[in-house]
């Protein structure tokens, strides 16, 4: 059995066929401020009662947090009221202990191998990094799930990917994600549940989280990393508990396969205006850069900050630079390790726990004609708040190199 089949067998007591519509009770459901108010509004129109266990709900305010305007503050007051009314304990408000971007909070504190996770956000699939089957849904779907205690989905076809060899310097999970996007395109993994097998332990859960996260951009139904030593070590390190061992069987059957050899990869970027417009960094070298954003649920983890700090250390920013660790935990580690000082000394602005400019919400919206290098997940027209800004997506090494050079350069020259 594949990991996908095992997960559905655990839920249904049988193995369903790909294409079948099944109903499941998820292990975790999440939402944030910008979808939360919509979920709550629809749930109240449905009668307001809730069969889903509030203990299994995770809420974090991350998109427009702290609120940049009146309307954002209003929807947070509304959602906070609901959280209190139904006694959701797993609630992460601005500045609360372990506050962070929802997907990062779920990864750090909740998701486990073999679980099913749904969230009112397309990047909920980030939890696939530890071998959970995770999908984003719209607000009404999540409201109905909370009311009825279950939801439906179309069973996807399992596909195998193998990530082979050791990552060379400056190659990260982002380059793997972009390689897959370049190969399959933005709808290439529609209907697939990818099960990724990793050969090298250095391609750890943080690299994996970036790939699972961007499987939204690939159209994948789910993107799970097959749990291994790195997975169990990560859960133990973050939460002090032993994760359940849920792994595919050696005879697992897959409808399709794709291999990525890490030693053959070079740093990649996605040029405007789609995440599958993938080029080698060398193809766009010299492009003048106005602003760089390092952060988001895609690349706001400690190893991302470490990567960027290695390049920025001792240099001065030549582009506007915003760095946002994905959670309070990441921020504190970055403080302890000196990365925050490295960034601020170079002239970067640092905050934490928010999606910030990724979706054009606040904290650094680019202007007309400006070029942005961002470690986030989307470069659609208008994504960061202005339709005439051009966004290049990259890994944190390329982003950091752009900070110190003021243009896109190959980061391998700067290490």
């Amino acid at each position, binding site marked *: 059995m594949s990991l996908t089949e095992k997960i559905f067998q655990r839920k249904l007591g049988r193995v369903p066929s790909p294409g079948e*519509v099944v109903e499941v009770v998820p292990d975790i459901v999440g939402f944030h401020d*910008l*979808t939360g*108010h*919509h979920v709550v*509004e*629809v749930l109240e*129109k*449905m*009668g307001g009662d809730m069969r889903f266990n509030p203990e299994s709900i995770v809420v974090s305010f991350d*998109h*427009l947090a702290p609120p940049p305007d009146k*309307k*954002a503050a*209003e*929807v947070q007051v509304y959602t906070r009221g609901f959280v209190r009314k139904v006694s959701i304990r797993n609630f992460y408000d601005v500045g609360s202990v372990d506050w962070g971007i929802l997907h990062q909070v779920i990864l750090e504190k909740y998701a486990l191998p073999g679980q099913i996770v749904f969230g*009112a*956000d*397309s990047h*909920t699939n980030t939890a696939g990094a530890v071998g959970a089957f995770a999908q*984003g*849904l*719209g*607000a*009404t*779907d999540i*409201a*109905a799930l909370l*009311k*009825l205690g279950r939801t*439906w989905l179309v069973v996807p076809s399992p596909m195998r990917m193998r990530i082979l060899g050791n990552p060379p310097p400056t190659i990260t999970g982002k380059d793997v994600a972009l390689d897959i996007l370049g190969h399959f*395109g*933005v*709808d290439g993994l*529609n209907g697939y549940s990818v099960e990724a097998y990793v050969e090298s332990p250095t391609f750890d859960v943080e690299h994996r989280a970036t790939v699972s996260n961007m499987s*939204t*951009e690939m*159209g994948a*139904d789910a993107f799970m990393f097959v749990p291994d030593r790195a997975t169990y070590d990560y859960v133990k390190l973050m939460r002090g508990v032993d994760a359940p061992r849920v792994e595919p069987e050696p005879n697992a059957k897959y409808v399709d396969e794709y291999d990525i050899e890490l030693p053959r990869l070079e740093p990649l970027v996605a040029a405007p205006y*789609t995440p599958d417009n993938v080029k080698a960094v060398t193809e766009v070298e010299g492009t003048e850069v106005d602003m760089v954003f390092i952060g988001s649920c895609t690349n706001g983890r400690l190893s991302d900050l470490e990567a960027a700090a290695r390049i920025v250390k001792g240099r001065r920013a030549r582009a506007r630079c915003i760095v946002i660790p994905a959670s309070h935990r990441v921020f504190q580690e970055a403080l302890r390790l000196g990365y925050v000082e490295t960034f601020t000394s170079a002239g970067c602005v640092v905050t934490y726990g928010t999606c910030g400019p990724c*979706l*054009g*919400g606040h904290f650094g919206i680019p202007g007309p004609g400006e070029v942005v290098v961002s470690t986030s997940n*989307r470069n*659609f*027209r*208008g*994504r960061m*708040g202005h*339709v005439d800004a051009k966004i290049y997506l990259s890994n944190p090494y390329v982003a950091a190199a752009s900070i110190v050079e003021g243009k896109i350069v190959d980061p391998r020259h700067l290490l």
Partner: protein
Amino acid sequence: MSLVVRGKALVYGDKIDTDVIIPAKYLVYTDPKVLGEHAMEGIDPEFPKKASQGVVLVAGKAFGIGSSREQAAIALKGAGVRAVIAESFARIFYRNAINVGLPVLQVGGIRDAVAEGDELEVSVEEGEVRNLTRGTTIRVNPLRGLPLEILKKGGLLEYVRGV
């Protein structure tokens, strides 16, 4: 609700993403009228005016890629879109459209069979797109099962109220 809709075709390309359908700054709103005024703002500021008489939106591959924002489907519906026909859809957008009562139909090659302004009649239940301007009909797999039941009720909210 009736699952047969009529309207003039508005034709767009591949990979129409949720950021151009409705930018994130409007996600603090859920009102179809407010959202409809900004539908497709990222690629066609004239869209709300064009759609106001009731239209069928025709697009290429991967329509609705990107975010889970249900406001993308609500904005289109609020602007006057009566159905979306595309070569393919992003999974979440497709679900959201059905959940807010916006008929969607996947039709391979649709952009070769329809020109901007053609009068279309779409039946998702029969899996038919009738181009009344050209006098042609395209048949595809109809919508079935739970998605069809939800759409017949007018959306998931109405469906759940009736469970």
